[in-house]
């Protein structure tokens, strides 16, 4: 490998070059790059890398970052144990309005 190895996502051990290679293969959206490279799918759920990944994608596509859509934020915001979750009351079903 030429040049320094730059880690983009520390949880899933994804390098900047792997991210760029995925873009060259045709994965040009943040949602599909996340799934293809694993960026942002590790323990921190993207808190440490998704903004960097978005900045890199904006540079690759030569567009302002404001034109990119962030990936969907998935709960929980911090990992919780199944024991903690199981101790909670079961909420009533929500009306299907929000998205």
């Amino acid at each position, binding site marked *: 490998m030429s040049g320094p190895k730059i880690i983009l996502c520390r949880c899933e051990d994804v390098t900047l070059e792997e991210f760029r290679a995925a873009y060259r293969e045709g994965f040009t959206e943040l949602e599909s790059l996340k799934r293809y490279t694993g960026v942002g799918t590790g323990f921190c759920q993207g808190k440490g890398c998704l903004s960097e990944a978005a900045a890199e994608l904006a540079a690759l596509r030569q567009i302002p970052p404001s034109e990119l859509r962030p990936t969907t934020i998935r709960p929980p915001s911090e990992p919780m144990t*199944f024991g903690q979750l*199981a101790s909670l009351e079961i909420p009533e079903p*929500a009306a299907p309005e929000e998205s």
Partner: protein
Amino acid sequence: MIPLHSEPVPSAADAVIVGAGINGLATAYELARQGLKNIVVLEKNYLGSGSTGRCGGGIRQQWTTEENIQLAAESVAIYERMSAELGYQVFFRQGGYLMITEQEEDLPALRAAVDLQRRCGVPTDFLTPRECLDIVPGLDVGDLKGATFCPKDGTAYPFAVVWGYARACHRLGVKIFIKTTLTGIEAAAGRIQAVDTDRGRISTPVLVNCAGPWARSLAAKVGVELPNRQERHEIMVSEPLKPFLDPMVISITNGIYFSQSMRGEIVGGIGDPAEPRWEDPEDFATHSGLRFAVRFARELTRLYPRTRSVRMMRQWAGMYDVTPDHRPILGGVPEVGGYYHICGFSGHGFMLGPMVARRMAGFITTGREDPIITSLSLARFAGGDLQADAFVVG
């Protein structure tokens, strides 16, 4: 590998497939392999963005109807060679499926299912609760009444399967267009003539509807009324752990299922009778809820107490395209020549898709009658004599 957004669609094709989930891509691949040229796949979002990429990745042959058992068994045979065939690692792993019940009254159905599956060549066994501990040490079998186990069932990584098929399609000359929306279908003289997209018009004699939860609204554009309804189902993954759980565990009592992926995460979900259903695709919503997380965690920690200290990392939701008998709708319709649907998998498109695609590609290219496609055609709902598959879980 995938044409970028700016490229226009071709003005003519020999077949247009709508949907780049497992069924759309596998069908495109099989059609190309069987000699059809100029195949176009249209995907309104990204590869696997509909139901496939949101699914649990389970592949089981334990069903209660012969068509489902046969399609699943034939698909398992494809999965066993898929990484080599597609030239892409799809992380297929045969850890088996352990189907458990806590209700005495389920046992005759489980035993009957084992008999039927064995007659179809699927090596399922009936297990006592104590025997389940050999398969999953640490499972709380106190309330179990019995179980069935097939060691040849397994899991694969859904996105890898999608990407593998997409790459193989690309090698065979199939053109896949993502971020491309179908806006209209032209049918005349009882035949499909063309489709309109937001990137141009494609004249085509063949249209294959693999649109998953959007299949019903697509079919309506050519006047075909599907009985499918669309439901939200939720799912989650835990933090990654060293391998400790071999099979998929699935309960026909309360609809929980969980397995360990090759990334080490526990992947699982649980059915909820209160899940919303929609008529109009505009109303589809795949938000995640705390209700699911708590219901899943309660059942998981009750059945498998050693997971209490494992952390849930991420949850999401996807859509099931559910038919009245929980079996897919395959084939065409007599009124519109060149129109075909591969939909209504009721939550099981990932496990049945590879063989459904192979059979449907044969049917489309040769027109030769296929007994499984005939028995799973839309026409079956007109007769009113439905044979539902009983093992619908999740």
